[in-house]
């Protein structure tokens, strides 16, 4: 019924055939967008007999995108040297904190270089890197392998052309 309508225009002259619909934020009921049925009721149909689905159109009411641009007023203020630089402080805060932490860390490490003992960590790390496998002859797989002793390579007397 008509009580469900969140907007109703006044009675309009049908001969105009036109109505400028200005979308209000109140229609959204706090939402970003909302589907709505646009219906037209002729004077000849009483309110209780009116069926909005008979001659209705489905439309979407939306808050729309808000594009933040410099308005003429803001540009005029900038021309006069009045700027809102709060965003600048926010943008610079995080890199400054990181830089300060890096410098503090450097000095801390520099000052504690003589009293620092990380040998256990170093040993463990190197142990992980160079794992001792043992001698080749102790390995089951290579037990039967004959490891020949080193022999000198044969040498030959050079002929006259080679020298």
């Amino acid at each position, binding site marked *: 019924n008509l009580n469900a309508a*969140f907007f109703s225009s006044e009675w309009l002259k049908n001969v105009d055939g036109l109505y400028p*619909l200005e979308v209000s934020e109140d229609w959204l009921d706090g939402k970003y967008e909302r589907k709505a*049925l646009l219906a037209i009721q002729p004077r000849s149909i009483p309110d209780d007999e009116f069926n909005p689905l008979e001659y209705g159109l*489905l439309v979407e009411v939306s808050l*729309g995108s808000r594009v933040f641009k410099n308005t003429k007023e803001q*540009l005029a203020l900038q021309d006069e040297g009045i700027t809102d630089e709060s965003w600048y402080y926010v943008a610079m805060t995080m890199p400054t904190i990181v830089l300060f932490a890096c410098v503090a860390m450097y000095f801390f490490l520099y000052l504690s270089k003589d009293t620092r003992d990380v040998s256990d960590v170093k040993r463990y790390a190197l142990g992980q890197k160079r794992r001792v496998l043992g001698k080749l002859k102790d390995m089951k797989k290579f037990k039967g392998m004959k490891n020949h002793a080193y022999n000198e390579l044969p040498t030959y007397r050079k002929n006259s052309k080679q020298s």
Partner: protein
Amino acid sequence: YVPVKKPKHTTTTTEVPKPWLRTISSTIKEIVTPTVIAGVTFSAKPLETPDPLQPWISLKKDGTPQTIKPEIKKGRTVKASPDYSTYFKTAYTTTYSYEDLQAHNMDADEHLEEEVFVDEDSTYISLNPVIRCTPDTYFKKGIARDISSEPFCTPRENSVLKVDHTYFVTWYTRFFRDEVTEETIDQVRLHLFAVKEKAHDKGFKR
């Protein structure tokens, strides 16, 4: 480094269209006050010398106005203001007898029935520069696009109407007729109803 592009300086007028006097029905005088809605001036005073290339206001699919400027190209007018055919005319059937016409190829007892179209009263229509809705400009709505949008022409179905914007809702004025007298209904009213949406109707995640 991107240089800041400043908007070009535009000259805007704060001049309010002044009321003007016109004579309707040859004797009655009336003061007409122009109104500006969404940049469109309604009830503006007609030019002293009518311009055939006078701009007119068309409507986009969502009902926002756009100015169309007619041009003459190769001797023909392009983008001329729309012709509404006989949609806003009233048809009358006039019967002529042989005595009335005295046509040489007519029998004495023969009657000629001729359909005559009479233009509507343009007293108030002429003040509207926006394109009018006719059955020619209906569109198809529904999931299968098989239902006529009558009596609406704009906005199209599922148009997005943004807050703080003005959209023109247009309908065919001769759609609603009295069942008995067949006369066009004088007054109408627009309503907006909330639609209960299912989860899958709510669109994409944002």
